[in-house]
């Protein structure tokens, strides 16, 4: 069953006399039917703009520079590649957690959120080593500054979302679990895709752009 | 006090003249547009009947009126688009006219902006003929001048309203501006990008001399500083060499070799002090040396704590450096 079909259509409002009776409408909805989805989309737009411009800044400064990297050498690939593999792999439990949320299945949600959290923590640890393998300090020159901030911005989002995931995992233990909380979990999963997708260009810029 | 012409509408060079023409065109067109819109509004207000809040809103369809309104708005939009397109073409043409200043046989000057003064270097093939001056450029009438611009600290902007538009001086970037003065005279310019406490007092004068006068000025500037003639002037030079002055200022031919403040080799020939802040007279020189922070708070020049006699001697010596 595709995700699209899993977002059920609305129960209609019913006309009673000159009034429109909405009492039977669902009290929450998934994906674009929920307000949370729109708020989340706004936040992703905001952060996406910031990421995008950080990448623009990178190439702008590179274009002004005779030598790039202007200090140090390009970052070592090892941890970046591990991170890339791990973050792509994380999309799967994330997808499963999102589906479980759509089914409002607390146990499955919890199971996959655990997996997501563990991968998330692993990603944070790998990220730490990535910073040590950049071969440049943030104050060595414009190149160092740019890739530190670029990686730092993504790390900030990564860490907050991992923390979010862990909080959501913990919150599934606070019973009863109302339907809206599954919406939150589904939205958190949506946000995680954003983290995964933004990592792709950032990975390319941090690890490969200085090699050509 | 030296005052120069500094008005966008009083051009003395081909570029400023082209821009002034554009300005006149824009002013006329924009005034017409403004008047037209205001008249349209006035007619609309005058013709519309009056009502009160209680009047029912008019929701009926009025195909005839609507058609007329649509036509009116359509024409207005079309007219404004056309006018804008016309102005755009005029702007591009002016832009090209400004860029097309003939540059053969141009005078080249390097201009470095400091907080808060202008350092001008007239380079020459023979290094002995190169010299530096400050806050007062002399240029020959009728010859193009190419000024290469550098910033020493923060962003400044060179603006000579009667000669050309402005150009920013940005640290780490070199830029140039070219202009030509067609009439002899003094043209005032000023730093146009906020650069700190004394952004207000960062003027620059361009003195356009007839060619022979310019040549004389050039020859004078290339010579080392004049030897002091009187005892007072000698005392002045001694003080300049032994006290704080020489740490920052240069006077060619003396031991004052500082490179951080205006070159004083021919300071006596300049009309103003402190980038156009005060006239270059004996009394003002004393005031300036005694307490520059009163004249120009935040300037880097420190006050000189010397007995009045010595101050007068320094002022006299500097005044003699023509």
């Amino acid at each position, binding site marked *: 069953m595709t995700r699209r079909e899993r977002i059920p259509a609305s129960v209609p409002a019913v006309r009673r006399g000159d009034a429109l009776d909405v009492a039977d409408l669902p009290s929450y909805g998934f994906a674009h039917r929920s307000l949370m989805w729109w708020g989340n989309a706004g936040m992703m737009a905001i952060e996406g703009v910031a990421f995008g411009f950080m990448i623009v800044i990178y190439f702008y400064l590179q274009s002004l520079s005779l030598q790039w990297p202007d200090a140090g050498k390009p970052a070592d690939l090892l941890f970046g590649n591990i991170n890339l593999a791990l973050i792509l792999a994380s999309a799967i439990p994330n997808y499963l957690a999102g589906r479980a949320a759509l089914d409002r299945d607390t146990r499955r949600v919890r199971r996959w959120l655990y997996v997501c959290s563990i991968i998330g923590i692993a990603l944070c640890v790998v990220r730490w080593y990535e910073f040590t393998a950049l071969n440049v300090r943030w104050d060595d020159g414009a190149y160092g500054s740019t890739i530190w901030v670029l990686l730092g911005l993504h790390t900030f989002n990564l860490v907050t979302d991992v923390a979010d995931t862990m909080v959501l995992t913990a919150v599934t233990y606070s019973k009863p679990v109302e339907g809206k909380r599954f919406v939150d979990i589904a939205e958190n999963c949506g946000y995680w895709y954003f983290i995964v997708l933004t990592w792709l260009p950032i990975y390319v810029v941090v690890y490969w752009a200085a090699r050509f | 006090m030296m005052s120069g012409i500094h008005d966008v509408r009083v051009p003395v060079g081909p570029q400023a003249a082209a821009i002034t023409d554009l300005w006149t065109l824009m002013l006329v067109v924009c005034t017409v547009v403004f008047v037209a819109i205001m008249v349209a509004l006035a007619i609309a207000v005058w013709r519309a009947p009056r009502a009160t809040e209680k009047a029912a809103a008019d929701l009926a369809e009025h195909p005839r009126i609507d058609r007329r309104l649509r036509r009116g708005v359509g024409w207005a939009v079309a007219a404004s688009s056309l006018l804008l397109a016309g102005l755009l073409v005029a702007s591009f043409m002016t832009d090209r006219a400004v860029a097309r200043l003939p540059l053969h046989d141009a005078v080249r000057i390097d201009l470095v902006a400091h907080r808060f003064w202008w350092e001008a270097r007239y380079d020459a093939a023979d290094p002995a003929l190169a010299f530096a001056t400050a806050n007062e450029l002399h240029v020959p009438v009728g010859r193009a001048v190419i000024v290469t611009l550098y910033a020493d600290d923060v962003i400044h902007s060179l603006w000579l309203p009667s000669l050309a538009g402005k150009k920013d001086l940005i*640290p780490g970037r070199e830029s140039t501006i070219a202009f030509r003065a067609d009439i002899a005279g003094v043209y005032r310019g000023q730093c146009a990008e906020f650069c700190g406490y004394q952004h207000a007092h960062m003027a620059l004068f361009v003195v356009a001399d007839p060619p022979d006068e310019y040549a004389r000025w050039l020859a004078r500037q290339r010579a080392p500083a004049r030897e002091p003639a009187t005892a007072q002037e000698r005392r002045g030079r001694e003080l300049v060499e032994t006290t704080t002055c020489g*740490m920052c200022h240069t006077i060619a031919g003396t031991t004052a070799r500082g490179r951080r403040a205006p070159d004083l080799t021919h300071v006596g020939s300049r009309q103003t002090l402190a980038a156009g802040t005060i006239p270059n007279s004996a009394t003002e020189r004393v005031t300036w040396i005694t307490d520059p*922070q009163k004249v120009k708070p*935040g300037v880097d020049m*420190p*006050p000189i704590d010397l007995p009045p006699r010595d101050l007068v001697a320094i002022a006299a010596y500097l005044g003699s450096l023509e």
Partner: protein
Amino acid sequence: MSSRCRERSRVAALAALTLIAALVAGCERESRQFDPPAPGAVLARDRPTAMLVSRYERNAHALAAGKRLYTWFNCAGCHAAGGGGAGPALMDDVWIYGGDADAIVASIAKGRPNGMPAFGARLSNDQVWQLAAYVRSTSGLAPQDAAPNRDDAFLTRTPESFMDSQDPGRAIPSAATGAGR
């Protein structure tokens, strides 16, 4: 007066005090005093007065001016960027003639044997004190919120605002400056 009322007035007093403290701290750090003090005040050769500390060592404007003069007058020619060369290092905790401001002022103004020239006649007193304050900041002895940041230039050294305080080891600690913090 009820106790609650007294409580409230105490809170108000505390708030007012905090405000005044912030005001004083802010003004001390940020004031741009362009006119130098009367010559007598600056020439005091005993312990630096509170006025001098506040005017130079804790004042961002004076420290920045000191840094500018350090470059202008080519102090780096001997002392390099604080790391030392022909002259002794300035950014460590070793002070040959004492590390408090008045000792440094004396070194700059009067010179020292083995090469340090006397600049007393060629610099104004104000400039000497600014230089001395800056020199102390290279050892982290100026408050971090007033010390200069990095320059817009080639990176040669750690910005002064990052220096950890190098407590003057062999120097007599300066009571009035309280090691700069």
